[in-house]
């Protein structure tokens, strides 16, 4: 593994709501290697977005980071003051949140979003230079700069807006590009465009990409590494190829099988029985145990640690802990 550019240590975050606290990210440990592409996959409401929001310090007002550290270039981002954070944002770490449809100011033209971002980072580009740069980026994402730059957001389609956001994210050639569900809410053709675009960006630039998706097919196509989140915990992290060939965690197995069953002609559905856990009232122990066919007594009591296996993949499951180092099947 290459040098870790972003290192998350014991990160926990929760939301405060009327009914109590939602523990959406629990004790997360992650290392993101430089110039790699990592996909964070999981069901809806599994805490995928929370993890990313906590890393970028952009949780909604009712979100709190309760513990943990996030190292970027050996500095703890979570400890930096607001002004420092503001400067890192976009120049070093660009994060495109979900809801691309409403992320542009309806009363401002597309070009003004570029201008504001540049001016806020005290970069001495003339308006002409900003326009040139913006045009270049829009061309990269296959948009016609002549019309798009002077359009208002409402004049663009959903796919166009998503591409504008990606173009905006590349404005300062950030080290890390984080995308939350870049392809959801888009039609299949536009999805294919975005996936192709991200592949090109990955190929042509020194950039580390982290993206969230619930579409494991897109994860398979783009990512070098896949991180599986379940009930606010990282339950597995491995190379894309390994995870598809040989999923470790029972949940990951179910997830992979569910697509494989679509591809094969097998009539029997192989989805995962049961419902995802409520994060407001999570089950004790391993969050997956109520749905797991291998669950034993210990799974109901203790949360398994994320352990490293011999093939360098990581999994949080007692099946492997007991197997110790002999998982090499």
């Amino acid at each position, binding site marked *: 593994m290459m040098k870790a550019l972003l290192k998350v240590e014991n990160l926990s975050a929760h939301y405060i709501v009327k009914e109590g606290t939602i523990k959406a990210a629990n004790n997360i440990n992650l290392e993101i290697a430089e110039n790699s592409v990592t996909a964070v996959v999981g069901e809806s409401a599994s805490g995928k977005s929370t993890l990313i929001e906590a890393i970028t310090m952009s949780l909604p007002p009712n979100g709190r980071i309760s513990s943990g550290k996030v190292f970027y270039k050996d500095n703890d981002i979570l400890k930096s003051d607001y002004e420092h954070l503001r400067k890192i*944002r976009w120049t070093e770490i660009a994060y495109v949140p979900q809801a691309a449809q409403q992320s542009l100011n309806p009363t401002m033209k597309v070009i003004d979003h570029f201008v504001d*971002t540049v001016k806020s*980072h005290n970069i001495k580009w003339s308006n002409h230079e900003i326009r040139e740069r913006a045009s270049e980026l829009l061309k990269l994402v296959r948009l016609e700069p002549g019309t798009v730059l002077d359009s208002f957001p409402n004049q663009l389609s959903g796919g166009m807006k998503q591409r504008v956001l990606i173009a905006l994210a590349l404005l300062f050639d950030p080290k890390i590009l984080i995308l939350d569900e870049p392809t959801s809410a888009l039609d299949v053709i536009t999805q294919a465009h975005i996936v192709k675009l991200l592949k090109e960006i990955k190929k042509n630039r020194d950039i580390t990409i982290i993206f969230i998706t619930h579409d494991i097919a897109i994860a398979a196509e783009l990512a070098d590494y896949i991180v599986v989140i379940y009930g606010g915990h990282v339950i597995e992290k491995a190379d894309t190829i390994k995870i598809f060939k040989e999923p470790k965690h029972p949940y990951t197995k179910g997830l992979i099988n569910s697509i494989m069953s679509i591809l094969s002609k097998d009539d029997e559905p192989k989805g995962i029985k049961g419902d995802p856990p409520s994060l407001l009232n999570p089950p004790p122990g391993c969050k997956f145990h109520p749905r797991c066919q291998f669950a034993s007594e210990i799974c109901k009591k203790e949360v398994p640690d994320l352990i490293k296996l011999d093939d360098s993949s990581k999994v949080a499951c007692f099946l492997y802990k007991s197997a110790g180092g002999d998982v090499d099947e």
Partner: protein
Amino acid sequence: MKFILNRLIYLLFVLFIAISGIFFLINKMPGDPAYGLAVSISQQRNMDINKALEIAHQMMGIDTGEPLFIRYVKFLNQFIRGNIGYSTYYQTTVNEIVAKSLPWTLLVVFISILISFIIGVYLGAFSAQKRGRAVDISISFVSSIIQAIPPFVLAVLILFVGAIKLRIIPLGGAYPVDMEPSLSMDFIISVIKHAIGPIVAISIPQIAVWTLAMRGNTPQIMEEDYIRFAMIRGVKDSTIARKYIRNNAILPLVASLAIAFGYMLGGNTLVESIFNYPGIGFYFGKAIALRDYGLLTGLFSLIVVGVIIATFLAEIIYSLIDPRVKVK
């Protein structure tokens, strides 16, 4: 362009309905609008009241023998030509009264709205940004009280303190009687001095109204995704406050702004009366007190037309500042 044309046709239709409404309302009112004039004629010329009434009807262009529908057509005909009636008390056309009073009202209303809107928007946005803190709570508390104070009460207060106790503003009128209207510095300064009283009386409650409206709009905008995305992009707080929050929160207010302007044309009757300020409202008050039906109808129509046109302008302005409206 098609949008504007559509609205224009709609506007003419509403105008027609409103003017007809006024005509029938006034004509179906009990009493004879010409009676006041007839009494003064009969006294002046020592004439029988019935004969005087006939003359009065002729002077006002009313033929009571005519059926209502014919009178209605005549009224519309006059109205379209721009002749909105005859004042029995001032013995002149309403147009003439409007010509000399409208500028004063426009001056006061325009300045009041401008001042109160700007201050209100700033205060409201500021208050919303400090939401929940002492400064926000005090601003909204004070605003809620102030917005409920009727302008005429303030007018009395201002007149009493400013003109009688402190003697810093004149007692009434639009400019000193011994001064000839001109563009000299002296005249302009004296016009401003005379207008200050009405402007302050109208502006204070208006400031509170805009403050509360802006404060109410802002939190909703602050939760929008584009605000969050701007923060994630590292856009400066001051830029977010200005271009992202305020410019979006202001949109619904601009429509109310134009409508407020229309209403204020006639809505300051009492304030203008208290300051003896010769605007539309002042003559409107006179028309009511003197039973001057002609003047009343004319000014009433004028105000209605003002409100309708202001509403129309509001829509046009809205479509200019909010790019989303055009598409629809």
